[in-house]
């Protein structure tokens, strides 16, 4: 049972570079989410998706983009990386049926922008 898989685990970017954080889930969940977590802080929602082809902004979307072409994958794109984007990024997914509303998280991607 892989659950939610995120790659890479660690990355260092230079200011102005771009990258894509990958997230895939094998639980056939419709809902997927991207959060960021800064030291000593809770998780803040960046973007979310309720199904393939449908995405929407969360609390802190500036500087990020997402796409959802399949149920399984929900990549997060950083364009023109800035030091303020140094953080730990978590992807999560949840089901719309059964024991609903429980979000399952990946292990995170630790990103430093220098």
């Amino acid at each position, binding site marked *: 049972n892989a659950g*939610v898989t995120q790659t890479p685990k660690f990355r260092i970017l230079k200011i102005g570079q771009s990258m894509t954080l990958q997230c895939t889930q094998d639980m056939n969940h419709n*809902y997927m*989410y991207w*959060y960021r977590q800064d030291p*000593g*802080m*809770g*998780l*803040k*929602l960046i973007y*979310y*998706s*309720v199904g393939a082809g449908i995405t*929407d902004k*969360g609390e802190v979307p500036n500087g990020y983009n997402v796409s959802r072409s399949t149920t399984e994958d929900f990549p997060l794109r950083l364009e023109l990386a800035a030091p303020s984007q140094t953080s730990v990024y*978590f992807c*999560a997914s*949840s089901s719309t049926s059964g024991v*609903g*509303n*429980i*979000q*399952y*998280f*990946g*292990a*995170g991607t630790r990103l430093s922008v220098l």
Partner: protein
Amino acid sequence: EDQVTQSPEALRLQEGESSSLNCSYTVSGLRGLFWYRQDPGKGPEFLFTLYSAGEEKEKERLKATLTKKESFLHITAPKPEDSATYLCAFLTGSARQLTFGSGTQLTVLP
């Protein structure tokens, strides 16, 4: 504005010393209050969901309770392996988003 506040920020206990973590919330129409555990370098792991005041749930040494304004995570006779950050969150939005508190970092000393 809907918000959630956790206290204390950090808590150090001796093994076997019971205590409680607090999660205060201000939400118009609570649809679910969640507790997660987060170990260093890992993603949050689901513990409990509470939906209505008076509800309680238990798992091993942990018990979560809910009132109209607060949720408590009671830890009975903790062990060092209970050391982690405990996050509470409430459900919001049409896509079932979670709004998280900043967490309580629990350290249990042997």
